């Protein structure tokens, strides 16, 4: 099963299971979504539960929030994460504060899904990684899975969660990454990282598309006699501090990899957690491979390649860290 199939099946199962669940967003009806995440949904669930919205993202989030406060379980799709900024006020300013600002009288059980990330010739406005902005906000949960299995289990949990979840799907993984998904029903816990490869010499901590590049680099390093442990964060808020600290303490060397811009990104928080709580275990500097400090990913292939971290850069960083 591919990642996009996992997204679709998770939503289909949750909509079949719970009448309160519905989907809304741009082009999700007859078109089935620009990535076909809702392919066949209108036929199966009807237009009342598969709502094509006007091109108005702030209200997509605001309407989903209102429906959530009134007992529904909306899944709102933002067509591309690059279009998510108009929702910022309704999500960060409003949804994240519903429970706290009403002292628990109301909650906002909504999911905002968005395809994010580059390497698809998406240019400045179809390549962005918005996770750090949302992961900064208490009251939100931010999930960014890398595999079909994790995507399906975590999306189902997001739909059932009592709090607002930003669910980020790396669009390059949609059809590129395939994997086994069991036929039987399962969910996965939000807030739990997952060791995708056991190792003992260095730790690489990543999520999304970059996790796969890290695994590829780790296999190269294995041939060179370096044992790499790969931790998939899966959830960016709340971060799984225990899993981060466990792998850092185990190997004493941590490399953090993400496609999003480096400064003040998720990697900075992961590094700080390790520095604060596992300092005495470290045998080398905490290192980061991340996106460069330009505002967004350029369109031309040569320029796009300069933005995207690749396996070679990651493998080189691993080698450098292993030498300590």
């Amino acid at each position: 099963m591919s990642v996009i199939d996992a997204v679709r099946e998770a939503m289909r199962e949750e909509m079949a299971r719970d009448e309160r669940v519905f989907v809304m967003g741009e082009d999700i009806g007859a078109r089935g979504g620009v990535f076909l995440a809702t392919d066949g949904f209108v036929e199966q669930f009807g237009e009342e539960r598969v709502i094509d919205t006007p091109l108005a993202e702030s209200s997509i989030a605001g309407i989903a929030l209102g429906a959530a406060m009134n007992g529904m379980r909306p899944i709102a799709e933002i067509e591309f994460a690059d279009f998510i900024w108009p929702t910022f006020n309704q999500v960060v300013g409003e949804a994240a504060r519903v429970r706290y600002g009403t002292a628990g009288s109301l909650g906002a059980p909504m999911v905002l899904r968005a395809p994010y990330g580059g390497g698809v010739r998406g240019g400045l406005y179809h390549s962005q990684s918005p996770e750090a902005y949302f992961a900064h906000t208490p009251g939100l949960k931010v999930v960014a899975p890398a595999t079909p299995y994790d995507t399906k289990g975590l999306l189902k949990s997001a739909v059932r969660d009592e709090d607002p979840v930003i669910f980020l799907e790396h669009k390059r993984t949609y059809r590129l990454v395939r994997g086994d998904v069991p036929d039987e029903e399962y969910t996965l816990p939000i807030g739990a990282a997952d060791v995708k490869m056991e190792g003992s010499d260095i730790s690489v901590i990543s999520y999304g598309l970059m996790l796969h590049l890290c695994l590829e680099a780790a296999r190269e390093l294995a041939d060179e006699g370096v044992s790499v442990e790969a931790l998939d964060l899966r959830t960016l808020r709340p971060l799984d501090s225990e899993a981060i600290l466990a792998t850092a303490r185990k190997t004493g060397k941590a490399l953090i990899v993400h496609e999003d811009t480096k400064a003040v990104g998720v990697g900075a928080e992961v590094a700080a957690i390790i520095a604060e709580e596992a300092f005495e275990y470290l045998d080398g500097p905490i290192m980061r491979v991340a996106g460069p400090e330009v505002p967004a990913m350029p369109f031309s292939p040569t320029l796009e390649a300069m933005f995207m971290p690749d396996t070679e850069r990651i493998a080189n960083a691993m080698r450098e860290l292993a030498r300590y």
Partner: protein
Amino acid sequence: MDQGRTDIAPGRGPTDSELLEMYRLMALCRALDERVWLMNRQGKAAIVASAQGHEAGQVGSVAALRIGHDRFYIYYRDLAALVSLGLTPAQIMSGFLAKAGEPLSGGRQFPTHGAHAGLNLVNLSNVVATQIPQAVGDALASKMRGEDAVTIVYFGDGAASVGDCHEGMNFAAIHKLPVVFFCENNGYAISVPLSKQMAVDSVAGRAEGYGMPGVVIDGTDVSAVYEATAAAAERARAGEGPTLIEAMVERYLPHTSDDDDSRYRPRGDIEEARKKDPVKMLRERLLADGILDEETDERFSADAKRAVNEATEEVEAAPHPDPSSFYDHVYAGDTGGASSR
């Protein structure tokens, strides 16, 4: 004042006993509002957004709806709506003093903000117009479940300029959602007069552009408000979709207790506005019509004063929230301890 479209059937008007009850509530609101403003000047209430001049709009519209069944998204100037919905003066005042046990947010939010699940009441934000798409989503939920609840959403003329207002109204009209958009137009967005907010003379006139009726009403006339709201609610329940009501009201006091309206508002303007005081006008009308007598009026006035005095005593004596509650309700299940997140 019919500058907008008036193509909806007139709704039922209030009965005499409803009018009397609305007058009692308006008198109570005014007494409570004056008291909390005073408490701000005494240094006891950190901030007050006064509803003085807006009372008929809020009381009249709530009275036309079904409390506990219909759904209310109010905004920061809607103290009179809270009184109409049945919150006690002490409950409301506990918000102004941010005391423990405050029913809407536990003292976390500015006065009148938070939510009340039993009353279907939401007043989440200080950011104007955010409540408009939220109310539309709320109404969408009612419609999807086949319920006949009507969602009313209150906002000021300032909020009408925000994109969320446009987006919410457009969606509600497309899906014929059971929403009443209730604009309390007092002519000022803090200090900016209507002439600098819009090039047209009415918010309601925009309704046609969305494909819904829009009406301009005298928001100081409680009967006009009641009738327009009843008509809009009737349309909503019949599946005919949303209505935009623009209630022309007056703001007697500065935007909030932190504002100084002498910097932008001519004195004569407010004196003129006070001639149309909705509480006084209703009193005179009910006396003239024989619905109210002097004795009852004095009793209402004494009851309001006593209720406000008792509330003041009770709330001033109440404790502030226990700091141990600080981390409660960040996420579901967070109670009684420090957050680990």
